[in-house]
């Protein structure tokens, strides 16, 4: 890939990433939000993160297929325990990586 093409690519990626980050702040911060909307928005993060986690843990390959028990999903259990216990993103990421590395060696 040529350098100008790459620059155009990341500029495009940057633009389509920035706009969804900006628009709600621009429009929603200027007015009072209705109560139901605030309550609905409150459920958004848990829903997104869970959708990401489930698809990362239980789907594999192309075309994708369901694989409930595999190294990724098994390692998730102790990783969640570390997150609950330490409440620290750093420790959780490092423990998850080490546990996965070990699990792949064993399996």
């Amino acid at each position: 890939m040529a350098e100008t093409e790459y620059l155009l690519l990341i500029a495009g990626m940057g633009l389509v990433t920035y706009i969804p980050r900006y628009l709600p702040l621009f429009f929603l911060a200027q007015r009072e939000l209705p109560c139901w909307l605030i309550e609905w928005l409150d459920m958004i993060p848990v829903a997104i993160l869970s959708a990401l986690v489930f698809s990362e843990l239980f789907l594999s390959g192309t075309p994708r297929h369901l694989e409930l028990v595999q190294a990724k999903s098994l390692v998730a259990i102790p990783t969640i325990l570390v997150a609950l216990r330490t409440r620290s993103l750093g420790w959780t990421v490092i423990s998850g990586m080490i546990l996965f590395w070990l699990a792949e060696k064993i399996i």
Partner: protein
Amino acid sequence: MLLMRSGPSQEDSTTSNDHRKGLKSPPPSGTLREGFKAAWPICVGYLPLGFAFGVLAQKAGLGPLDIALMSVLVYAGSSQFIAVAMLSSAAAPLSIILTTFIVNFRHFLMSSSLAVYLHGESRGFLSLFAYGVTDESFAINLVKFREGRWHRYQALAVNQISNLAWIGSTTFGGYAGQFVLAGSLGIDYALIAMFLCLLTFQLRGRIYLLTAIVSGAAAIAISFVVAGNSFVIMASLFGATAGFALKRYARKRRSHYGGD
């Protein structure tokens, strides 16, 4: 140096419990320090994650400067991982941009949640703040805003400090990539572990746990019907709506039987 200036209220924690009051005031003293205290867990998470990204990008043929530029312009971890994977399989730039849009559209929902706490801010501040809205800064800032006593400049500091950690660690990974074997050090698990941790932090009660299960199951189900990555957005909207309905229903029942 505006952020370091010491304001008239030395202990902002004692002045007000109302975050809205804090919003209008100038940055309190120790904004950077408080920002660091809140952002360091993100930074510690970004170091292995950014390193992992840098290594993978180097394997895909990107130089350290290319990697740094992408981290500055895009600043969205998971989509950067996906873009590099697509680059190595020689995907068309337009399809990479479209995928980036779909994967990062979740920030639209996050910015919407944060907007509640940034009511009436200037447009200049909002456009700077928007740049730093990520899964991680969102999760941390939302918790802090909910607790109250969280100043908009402290939230901005969290965004920008995390951004620096991301740019630094990805660039470093780009330099170090040539010395690291593909697939070693559990690098493939960095992103999953981060999502797991952020999800765990969000489970603040039974309704949230149920929402997570509904949304996760929906993601799996929809992923078999829809091609590409858009199933994440669809499942999130479905899961959040289901959770919202459940919450309303539970409250109605309680007030019906309990006589609120």
